[in-house]
């Protein structure tokens, strides 16, 4: 009899997490928990102003502080050829300032001392004099005639534009827009800066062993293998002499993909001092200097037929990239995968232009819980769909339905290949669960009594799981992933993967894939990750890519192992391989099903009783290059009540319907959605990190950048639809980011819907009660764009 897959923790089991055992006992291993013999501590001094030349820098008092071992300035970094470093977008970024400060919080100097308290004291003992320059805090100022050139370090840079890009069919799009029978709808929306801010900040311990020449880096990183390659390039050390260990991560959300300047200096310091150097970033440092997300301005026009069919879209996006262009994104796409916009809608023509701008803000564009700027595109898409529905006088659910893609495969307006989905089914389920038509009635009644109810819908399909390697790479490294599986004589196994968990539960779920393929109970499989000396090369975990890539590699390597086990089974059963059949956990003789051997029997035989000519052992590896992205589809619907006197709003009910294909561990999938939806709610509700006209970061700590607690966060009610991915070996699609990507529009749409009868079409996020109040009382849209000088 075949094994009960759920019972042994296979595909579809809501298996409890193995990671929990250490975390609930306080035995996790985060970077700050490591103490190496002789370890020193580093602190970073940051610039207090946004744009200024440094006229003098005096570190003498810092050097004299007892317990200080090293003070590194830009000048000293330059002597080691480390004043500048490459970014993931082929730009350069200052490691420590040598010429001028380009954003508030930029790294000026680092101090290494016996303990962090001393290092902080010594940072305070450094005196810096600045000659201020006019700060530029948004693209409008960056483009203004006579604006100072922020990147005057770059030869040939004569303005503040960091890139331009276009995609689509300009000619045909313009032709459609010229058709007088079509209604044109337009909208401007701003997606404000946000910050991923995992609770654990960035952190490193660099340990250079002068005897062996080996550099070991303990780093809170989502992508240890990419970091090793980057360090090899910058430090000019060979890769086999660098080991990156990423232990437990206290969250990541995209914030822990880049290389940050303080990492470079910690590595340099440990090489110069030949002692381990630890740097733990503080929260303010994290919030003001590490990679931001979003900060993008969107303009869209749509040409719509009377029956609601969109015939063409025309889009322009301006991005505020900060002082250095440091987005982690596929090389070919200057604005990430933003052009996946309108993917789930069948729109014949589209044309998009995008322009990036340098400003005096921290480098931005990190893919915060999303695949390379998809969050931005989906917010704009779904906000705009609602506006279009209002303008042409159609029900917002119906309007989406009229435009849905129904036949697969489908090539989207901007060139992506959608391969699967059942959008109507998801939408129907969502509408039923929120009692859509009943709510519309109640909304009407409530309005007549002066109460403001609103309902917001967001539907989207996003490409998750980069690559394939033909189209996707980061600084030339192709996007694939890997797995290595070793089955021991006892039949228990170790799986090593190229991706890296930050809380997603890889140690639990990746074992379940092996269980599904081999019938080895999940509890008998140890999953290892996050150590470059000990795992195969992989691109890491972001862009919801672990299951689509490393998960696929895990299924493929399991199949390779099974193929070899079959040979062993034939040998043990004394039949030819063709006569052997497989069922979960067991091979048997086709003509005599009772005669069989377990996978554990085969594993034992691989080391004790192999047939002549067969290599001993039972292990293999697989590199998986997906043929396409995976395309989950998600429907988020929420109802809200807005207080007509104060503009405050409460979520009444939230429904999510997600189709992420086959679910490996439903419990974990739901929890990933909860997390993403909470972040979506946060951005829509009150979480705000902005800049004043001088470039001061407002939101530099958790008091000002308020991430919501259990008290504000609503409950999320979730449902599933399953359309397996046609190309993923076990039918899975990415999911980790869907809530964060699709969620924000649902909340904003609901708030706008509550007051749309007053003519309001847009309130930029966050929908603070003051903004909602302004929109209601003055009956106009409320933009959230950053202030101009003098305001």
């Amino acid at each position, binding site marked *: 009899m075949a094994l009960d897959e759920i019972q042994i923790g296979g595909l579809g089991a809501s298996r*409890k*997490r193995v*990671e*929990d*055992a*250490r*975390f*609930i*006992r*306080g*035995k*996790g291993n*985060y970077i*700050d*928990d490591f103490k190496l013999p002789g370890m020193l501590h580093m602190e970073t001094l940051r610039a207090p102003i946004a744009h200024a030349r440094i006229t003098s820098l005096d570190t003498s008092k810092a050097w004299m502080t*007892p317990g200080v071992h090293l003070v590194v300035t830009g000048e000293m970094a330059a002597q080691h050829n480390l004043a500048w470093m490459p970014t993931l977008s082929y730009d350069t970024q200052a490691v420590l300032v040598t010429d001028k400060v380009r954003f508030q919080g930029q790294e000026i100097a680092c101090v290494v001392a016996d303990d962090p*308290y001393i290092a902080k004291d010594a940072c305070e003992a450094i005196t810096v004099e600045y000659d201020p320059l006019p700060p530029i805090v948004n693209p409008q100022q960056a483009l203004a005639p006579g604006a100072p050139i922020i990147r005057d370090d770059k030869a040939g840079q004569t303005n503040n534009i960091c890139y331009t890009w276009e995609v689509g069919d300009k000619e045909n799009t313009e032709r459609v827009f010229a058709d007088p029978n079509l209604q044109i709808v337009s909208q401007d929306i701003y997606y404000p800066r946000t910050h991923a*801010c*995992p*609770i*654990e*900040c960035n952190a490193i311990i660099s340990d250079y062993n002068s005897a062996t020449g080996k550099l070991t880096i303990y780093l809170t990183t989502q992508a240890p293998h990419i970091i090793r390659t980057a360090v090899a390039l910058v430090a000019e050390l060979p890769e086999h002499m660098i080991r990156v260990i990423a232990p*437990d*991560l*206290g*969250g*990541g*959300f995209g914030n822990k993909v880049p290389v940050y300047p303080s990492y470079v200096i910690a590595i340099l310091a440990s090489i110069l001092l030949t002692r381990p150097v630890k740097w*733990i970033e*503080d*929260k*303010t440092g994290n919030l003001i200097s590490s990679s931001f997300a979003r900060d993008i301005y969107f303009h869209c026009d749509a040409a719509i037929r009377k029956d609601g069919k969109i015939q063409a879209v025309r889009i322009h996006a301006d991005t505020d990239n900060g002082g250095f262009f440091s987005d982690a994104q596929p090389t070919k796409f200057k604005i990430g995968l933003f052009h996946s916009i309108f993917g789930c809608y069948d729109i014949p023509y589209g044309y998009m232009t995008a322009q990036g701008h340098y400003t005096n803000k921290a480098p931005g564009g990190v893919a915060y819980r999303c695949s390379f700027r998809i969050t931005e595109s989906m917010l704009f898409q779904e906000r705009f769909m609602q506006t279009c529905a209002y303008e042409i006088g159609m029900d917002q659910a119906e309007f989406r339905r009229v435009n849905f893609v129904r036949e697969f495969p489908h090539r989207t307006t901007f060139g992506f290949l959608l391969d699967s989905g059942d959008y109507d089914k998801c939408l129907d389920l969502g509408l039923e669960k929120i009692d859509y038509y009943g709510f519309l009635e109640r909304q009407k009644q409530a309005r007549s009594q002066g109460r403001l109810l609103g309902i917001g819908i967001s539907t989207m399909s996003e490409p998750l799981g980069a690559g394939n390697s033909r189209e996707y790479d980061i600084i030339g490294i192709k996007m694939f992933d890997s797995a290595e599986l070793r089955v021991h004589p006892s039949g228990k196994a170790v799986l090593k993967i190229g991706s890296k968990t*930050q*809380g*997603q*539960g890889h140690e639990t779920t990746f074992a379940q894939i092996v269980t599904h393929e081999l019938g080895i109970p999940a509890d008998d499989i140890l999953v290892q990750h996050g150590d470059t000396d000990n795992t195969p090369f992989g691109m890491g975990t972001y862009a919801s890519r672990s299951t689509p890539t490393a998960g696929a590699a895990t299924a493929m390597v399991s199949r390779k192992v099974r193929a070899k086990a079959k040979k062993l089974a034939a040998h043990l059963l004394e039949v030819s391989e063709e006569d052997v059949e497989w069922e979960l956990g067991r091979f048997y003789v086709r003509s005599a099903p009772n005669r069989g051997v377990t996978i554990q029997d085969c594993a034992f035989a691989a080391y004790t009783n192999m047939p002549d000519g067969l290599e001993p052992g039972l292990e293999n590896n697989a590199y998986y290059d997906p043929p396409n992205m995976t395309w989950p589809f998600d429907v988020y619907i929420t109802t809200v009540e807005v207080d007509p006197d104060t503009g405050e709003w409460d979520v009444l009910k939230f429904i999510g319907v997600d189709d992420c294909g086959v679910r490996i561990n439903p*419990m*974990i999938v739901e*929890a990933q*959605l*909860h*997390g*993403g*939806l*909470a*972040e979506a709610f946060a951005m829509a509700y009150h979480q705000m990190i902005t800049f004043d006209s001088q470039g001061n970061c407002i939101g530099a*700590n*958790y*008091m000002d950048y308020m*991430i919501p*607690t*259990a*008290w504000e*966060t609503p*409950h*999320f009610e979730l449902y599933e639809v399953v359309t397996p991915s046609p190309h993923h070996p076990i039918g899975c699609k990415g999911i980790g980011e869907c*809530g964060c990507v699709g969620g924000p529009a649902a909340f904003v749409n609901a708030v706008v819907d509550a007051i749309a009868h007053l003519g309001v079409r847009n309130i930029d996020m966050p929908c603070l009660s003051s903004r909602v109040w302004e929109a209601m009382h003055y009956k106009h849209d409320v933009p959230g764009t950053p202030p101009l000088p003098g305001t």
Partner: protein
Amino acid sequence: MPEFRNVVVTVNEEPREAEIEPRLLLVHFLREVCGLTGTHFGCDTTSCGCCTVLFDGVPVKSCTVLGVQADGHEIITVEGLGSPSELSPVQEGFHEEHGLQCGFCTPGMMMTATAFLDENPNPTEEEIRWALSGNNCRCTGYVNIVKAVKWAAKKMATSGVSARGAAPIR
């Protein structure tokens, strides 16, 4: 040179004596002096609650207490929940209901929940959400944390065990 002070703090029922700088935060005393790294440091503004410990039974944010202020007092950290062989109801609840992802907020979250359940063993969802509103979690969206606390309450009711495990909080 900074002056040092002698302190004796009872941590998880064991007295710890040390010479410390008066400016040393309790969270650093626990982590660096006592070697108990389960208590995490997450922010600079007493906001995140990762560092929550029980101070004479009351949950406090140990990043905002000086080590010297704990002299003569009793501290319970996450390492003091349950016993080596058994989990406390709160620890078990977090595991059973998938109340944690990256685990960074978890010790603080569990300490707050432990003190709360000892005071209110049969809470509503609203009471749980309010009680935890001094603790941030960036991963879970709180849905399963609320469930975990409910699970623990039920376990306490059926087993007669206190939130912290066999030994009641003093």
